[in-house]
């Protein structure tokens, strides 16, 4: 009964996936982790009448697999499909060498149009329930609920806060029928699904940056023929142009309190870092040097600004102490280090590093300045850190096609999110969503 219902649901959801997959980014896992925890995510039983639009267990399983720290069991290897404790034969799962088992049920609730979702995580060795909850949601919210379950399971198993309920912003470029380059700013779930276009223009867009509350994006658009920094509410679509100085208006970065932007302007002749107060609109210059100064990034504690400067000849990463006003050079290895981002705990930086003429993403611990190269493809750029600090998303190229890659900060786990339709670039991983 329950399996038949599930098959029905699965067939229905498969249809939906096929329709959506054309437009969305699709994930390909390129390198996993042999020591990942084995977890069986059993298809959730659907106890309602008509089909369900989403396969929650599939979404959870894909989320957990992408983390690299958990290895979900293939459905074809499952000997049974329990959906609650009374249906579980723990011996089946020990035989399959599973450490944990996630089961669940979805049923219509008393209120029309709302579903009740129950999930339970079992420790196979101890045969005990270690996590469980009953949540509710509309059919249109099933993907969000699935990512929520992934977050809970992931945090329980790894001790790391899950970042599956977060978003990505990125820019796609494709030629239209008249061979004109069409630029689109898009927002999707962290798994590349539910992609939405929030801006379309035939002029370049770059440097999207999430506000700390994950509600707004700041970005650079050339739509007026000149670069300008724009702010846009991701949910309402409402937008406004913040800067239109002569010359550069670039590289916006939010302060941790969301009240200021660090930007690059060349209004005084040379590319320099400025701070724009979003309440008073006062503009304050932060750097003063005849070299290129660009790509600011606020430290998580708001006391420092990382930036790229060519003051030593080529680009290197510097850190400005906003309290003392002192500037310190952070990178010394290699002749090209640029566009750095802090880890959420502020102990590491990630940046573009050139080694033997090839551009990789590198990490450097601030305590000991030890540098490690994380990516293997050439022309890697724009690293952006997941809010839990475990993964980096970045832009790379294969042939003439740009796509997004992701790598764990220890370099052990990789996946890519290629789009079938366009060049994808300039990814920005959102902060944790607060609502």
């Amino acid at each position, binding site marked *: 009964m329950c399996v038949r219902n599930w098959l029905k649901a699965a067939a229905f959801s498969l249809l939906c996936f096929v329709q959506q997959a054309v437009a969305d980014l699709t994930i390909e896992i390129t390198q996993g982790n042999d020591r990942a925890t084995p977890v069986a995510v059993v298809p959730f039983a659907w106890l309602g009448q008509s089909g369900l639009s989403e396969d929650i267990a599939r979404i959870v399983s894909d989320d957990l697999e992408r983390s690299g720290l958990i290895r979900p069991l293939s459905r074809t290897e499952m000997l049974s499909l329990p959906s609650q404790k009374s249906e579980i034969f723990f011996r089946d799962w020990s035989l399959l060498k599973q450490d944990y088992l996630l089961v669940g049920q979805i049923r219509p609730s008393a209120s029309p149009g709302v579903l009740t979702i129950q999930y339970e995580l079992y420790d196979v060795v101890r045969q005990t329930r270690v996590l469980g909850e009953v949540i509710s949601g509309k059919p249109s919210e099933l993907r969000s609920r699935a990512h929520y379950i992934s977050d809970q399971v992931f945090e329980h198993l790894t001790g790391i806060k899950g970042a599956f309920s977060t978003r990505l912003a990125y820019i796609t470029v494709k030629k239209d029928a008249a061979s004109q380059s069409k630029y689109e700013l898009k927002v999707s779930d962290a798994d590349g699904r539910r992609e939405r276009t929030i801006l379309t223009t035939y002029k370049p867009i*770059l440097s999207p940056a999430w506000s700390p509350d994950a509600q707004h994006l700041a970005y650079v658009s050339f739509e007026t023929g000149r*670069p300008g920094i724009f702010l846009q509410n991701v949910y309402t679509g409402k937008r406004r142009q913040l800067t239109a100085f002569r010359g550069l208006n670039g590289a916006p970065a939010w302060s941790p309190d969301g009240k200021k932007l660090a930007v*690059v302007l060349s209004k005084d002749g040379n*590319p320099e870092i400025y701070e724009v107060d979003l309440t008073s609109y006062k503009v304050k210059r932060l750097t003063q040097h005849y070299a290129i100064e660009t790509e600011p990034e606020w430290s998580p504690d708001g006391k420092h600004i990382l930036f*790229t400067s*060519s003051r030593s000849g080529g680009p290197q990463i510097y850190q400005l102490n906003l309290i003392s006003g002192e500037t310190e050079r952070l990178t010394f290895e290699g002749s*090209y280090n640029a566009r750095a981002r802090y880890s959420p705990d502020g102990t590491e930086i990630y940046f573009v590093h050139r080694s033997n003429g090839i551009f990789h993403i590198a990490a450097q611990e601030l305590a000991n300045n030890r540098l490690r190269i994380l990516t293997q493809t050439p*022309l890697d750029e724009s690293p952006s850190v997941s809010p839990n600090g475990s993964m980096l998303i970045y832009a790379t190229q294969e042939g003439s096609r740009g796509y997004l890659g992701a790598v764990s900060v220890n370099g052990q786990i990789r996946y890519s999110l290629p789009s079938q339709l366009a060049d994808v670039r300039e990814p920005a991983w959102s902060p944790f969503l607060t609502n």
Partner: protein
Amino acid sequence: MEFKKYSKTLFFGATLAILAGCGGNAATQDQEEGAAGTDTEVQPVITSDGSSSDSAITGEQMGQDVENLEEKAEEVVAAMPEIETIYFDFDTSSIRADSREVLDMHVAYLRVNSDAKVVLEGHADERGTREYNMALGLRRANAVKSYFQVQGVNSDQLEVVSYGEEKAAVMGHNNAAWSKNRRVEIQY
């Protein structure tokens, strides 16, 4: 060798200025203004160009060969320069010696046609980061602007914009493509 060639073009430019009715010392004066208006450290190329031109332009030289230059000047002034793009080396905004001849033709045209306006559009190749390349493109366009100003072009005629690596002239991920993408386009 390079110096000699450059002195010649500068001399030619200065002579054109005279023909166009500017003062005999216009080039030198503008040069000083240009240097004062920009940080001298910003554009080392322009600074060194300035010192070489001081020694190159003398009254005696101007007296020489004027007729010949007059003919050349008419030719140049009549037509907008055909070559509108100059190229740069990787991660630098220094104007290459082989670009000066092209730039000087534009200087000549812009000085005579003082109502002509140009947009100096700076570009970078795809390597490295986008915002750094945006800044690099601006510095390249600024280098051309300073060169023009030093040679006596009115700054009202000049506008600078950078597209960084966003508008490649040539597609491809090789040296041939990259060398064509590191450029400033002089657009009338």
